[in-house]
């Protein structure tokens, strides 16, 4: 790994994005590229690099394909050391494809999922190098770990 790890921080919009922004102290000493679905969010990342990916959810297969293609392009171009996502479907792609470019990956399941992990969050467990829930009662020995929350 280079002296300054390259991070790809990718999420959908709304609450997923707000939660990603609250994780920023974790990226101290790293070169971060933020990737999300709304150009208007760029003003919130200061001088950090920023790119837009097409939005998708798991109910629209065509949009999902476009999003997956964009993420594969991004991973090949950027070659990050670590991919991190707070959800949702686009983040699942990024986390599950990270290993193909030699990157480790982190899934932080949204704090909105207080009673069970999201669908993407459950599936991400099989792929993520670090699998986290923000609710202590949802962490298990073989399941996601709990370090804390965005609150």
């Amino acid at each position, binding site marked *: *790994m280079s002296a300054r*790890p390259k*991070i790809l921080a990718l999420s959908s*919009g*709304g*609450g*997923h*994005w*707000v*939660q990603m922004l*609250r*994780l*920023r*102290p*974790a*990226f*101290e*000493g*790293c070169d971060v590229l933020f990737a999300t679905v*709304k150009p*208007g*969010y760029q*003003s*919130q990342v200061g001088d950090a690099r920023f790119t837009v990916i097409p939005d998708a*959810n798991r*109910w629209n297969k065509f949009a999902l394909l476009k999003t997956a293609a964009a993420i594969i392009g991004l991973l090949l171009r950027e070659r990050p*050391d*670590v991919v*991190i996502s707070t959800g949702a479907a686009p983040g699942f792609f990024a986390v599950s494809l990270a290993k193909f470019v030699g990157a*480790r990956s*982190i899934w*932080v399941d*949204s*704090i*909105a*999922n*207080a*009673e*069970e992990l*999201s669908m993407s969050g459950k599936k991400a467990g099989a792929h993520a*190098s*670090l699998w*986290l829930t*923000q*609710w202590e009662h949802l962490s298990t020995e073989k399941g996601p770990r709990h*370090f*804390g*929350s*965005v*609150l």
Partner: protein
Amino acid sequence: MILVTVGTDLPFDRMVKLIDAWAKEHSRSDVFAQIGEGAWTPEHIESAPFLSPEDFAAKCAEADVIVAHAGMGTILSALHAGKPLVVMPRRASLGEQRNEHQLATAKHMEEKGKVTAAFTEDDLLHQLNHIADLKPREPIGPHASKSLTDGIHDFIFKITG
């Protein structure tokens, strides 16, 4: 000023219609609603489909109280501004969301003492009728808990997974 928001994704007409009717009945002219693209347009209260993050932060700062869907983006923004917050969960059973996670969010965030939850229209009307009694909350900081950001930072800098 009462700030109403449905988040950035989908309209939530059931909540906005109820607040519009309440504002009309009580002659409240100090309500502003961010209603989403393609939403029903309120007749009595001022509204916009979408606000930029900067405009939304400015409205949050100006608001005395925030009434919202139970989305985490909205909840975190309101808590950061230290404003009292009433949340009404979108219901998948009414086609307002794809699953019932907002019910879980509202319930668990209320248990943590972060929000006042209104699970039904009657609950929401009750909260609106007593809106002046809602107390401001201790604002949350700009970042996640240190244990979470430290844990992620350590993982990033760990050479072998």
